[in-house]
């Protein structure tokens, strides 16, 4: 035991300075969800539907000859970037996809993006005030509602010394009674629906819900069918949606900070804005 204590001290600090200060977010090289340049799409002229046919998660639809990409369903498999003959889809490193309103995850393609819904409704203000009252502390109850364990692996990574989530005042708790945030992964299987709802009921108010991972935001490749729902839609009121398959630890941190109003939302109308 003393040897381990010495080792820990000797090795020094392993934690990144990010996100409080500029530093390594640890995601060098990580591919995000594909970027859509709808102006390049020629589907309306040629009737091409290669992308929609290749997408295993039904995230791409062709409506009125135009292409639409629903990031809530995108699993980032990058197949569309390989099949599009016009290069309308391109590989990106855009992974900080957390949004408060699910509608922001839909890239409508050619249709000009709707004006940004300003985040100043009475509800939002009340929510912001509530969140502020918590200061910097947040306790999370995580429920795996049928995930592939990819998201779980990244959630556990949050606790490793590199990300060290505790330093941000965010903790996981095993009991919903002590939780402020219900973090759900997986498409919600029929068997997990009831335990999930009961977990939510057991949480004290005010309480928030985050849908983490594409399964939870829109079903992804694993939702639907006879055994699953299509994510949290219609099951729980969700405050933050974070697609990604799986969302990497830095994306999870960005999403948690978005909930705590310490980070700005990057995605509006399905378009990713770079800081």
């Amino acid at each position, binding site marked *: 035991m003393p040897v381990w204590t010495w080792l820990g001290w000797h090795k020094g600090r392993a934690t990144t300075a990010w996100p409080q200060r500029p530093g390594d977010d640890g995601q060098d090289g990580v591919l995000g969800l594909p970027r859509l340049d709808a102006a390049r799409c020629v589907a309306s002229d040629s009737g091409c539907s290669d992308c929609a046919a290749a997408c295993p998660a039904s995230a791409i639809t062709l409506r009125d000859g135009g292409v639409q990409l629903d990031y809530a369903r995108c699993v980032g498999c990058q197949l569309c970037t390989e099949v599009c003959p016009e290069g309308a889809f391109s590989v990106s490193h855009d992974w900080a996809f957390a949004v408060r309103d699910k509608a922001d995850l839909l890239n409508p393609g050619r249709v000009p993006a709707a004006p940004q819904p300003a985040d100043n409704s009475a509800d939002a203000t009340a929510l912001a005030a509530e969140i502020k009252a918590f200061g910097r502390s947040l306790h999370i109850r995580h429920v795996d509602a049928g995930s592939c364990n990819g998201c779980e692996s990244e959630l556990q990574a949050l606790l490793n010394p*590199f990300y060290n989530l505790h330093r941000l005042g965010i903790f996981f708790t095993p009991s919903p009674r002590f939780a402020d945030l219900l973090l759900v992964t997986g498409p919600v299987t029929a068997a997990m629906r009831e335990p999930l709802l009961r977990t939510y009921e057991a949480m004290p108010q005010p309480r928030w819900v985050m849908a983490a991972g594409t399964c939870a935001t829109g079903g992804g490749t694993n939702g639907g069918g006879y055994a699953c729902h299509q994510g949290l839609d219609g099951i729980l009121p969700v405050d933050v949606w974070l697609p990604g398959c799986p969302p990497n630890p830095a994306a999870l941190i960005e999403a948690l900070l978005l909930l705590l109003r310490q980070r700005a939302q990057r995605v509006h109308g399905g378009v990713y804005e770079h800081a």
Partner: protein
Amino acid sequence: MESRFEGQTLRAGAVLAERVSGIDSVAHALAYAQAVEGAMGWRAPPRARYLRVILAELERLYNHLHYLGHLAKTTTLKVAEAEGHLLEERVKQINARLTGSRFLRGLITPGGLRRDLDISGLDKALDAITADIDSYLLRLENTRSHLDRLMTTGTLPRQVAFDQGATGPIERASDLDRDLRRDHPYANYEKVRFSVPVQQAGDAHARSLVRMEEIHESLAIIRQTIGRTKPGEVLRFEPMEEPDPQGEGLGWVEATRGGLLYAVHLSADRSRLSRVKIKDPSFSNWRVFPFTVEDSNMMDYAINEASFGLSIAGADR
């Protein structure tokens, strides 16, 4: 999950296979791809087969490091837990720089790999963590409090392991010397030299020892493979062998947790999947676990469970 494969294209099937058990993405995609290749008579090009070996061993590496961190957590070695998970994180970051995915997703597909990889920096990246891994494993093996909790905990006798179909590190810790990589080579495993660690005790300590030795072997396999990988194409669709007349194929992989099997049945025109059957190693090993619990100390339960290193998603297919 199996029913989701039905009606999918062969390419989309690989994306789905990666999402059956996220931490075994490579193993699942590889077993699936090999099953389809068997049905179609395809054979992946040599470079793709070598790169598949590298991907599979990187997956084993980060999973085993996570396993040791978790095991140290159950024996209340906080620093060892942190160190294990930090090493896992460093391997995942290497994965991301190499492939764009921390879980090595989006590469393996029937016929080879979807794109080529630049493995020139991999050697150096692994060199940078090998010394840390070595001293970590050595230190764990020299920590008495840790060993004391593992030894004689959750003993799985050889005969029970055999009868109940234990697989992977679990069976090898109970003196069953089986490994698909060596016994029925796939990818390019017949061209690399490695040993298959086997332990006799069948307890939690034996299970962790097998994994520790596998970490050394994985690193050695990756190094050998890097040296042998020659430039070339990575995707090929021409039939090299007689396609299966029924459109059926079987793929197998020695995944991190043991033998993983995919059986595929293609549609009449061989463009889509009509049925896919998955046998995940965790499915076999969950069955074995209860045989080690009986008459055991309650305080040892968590340690015993961690020593099995089971995946829930893998068992639920």
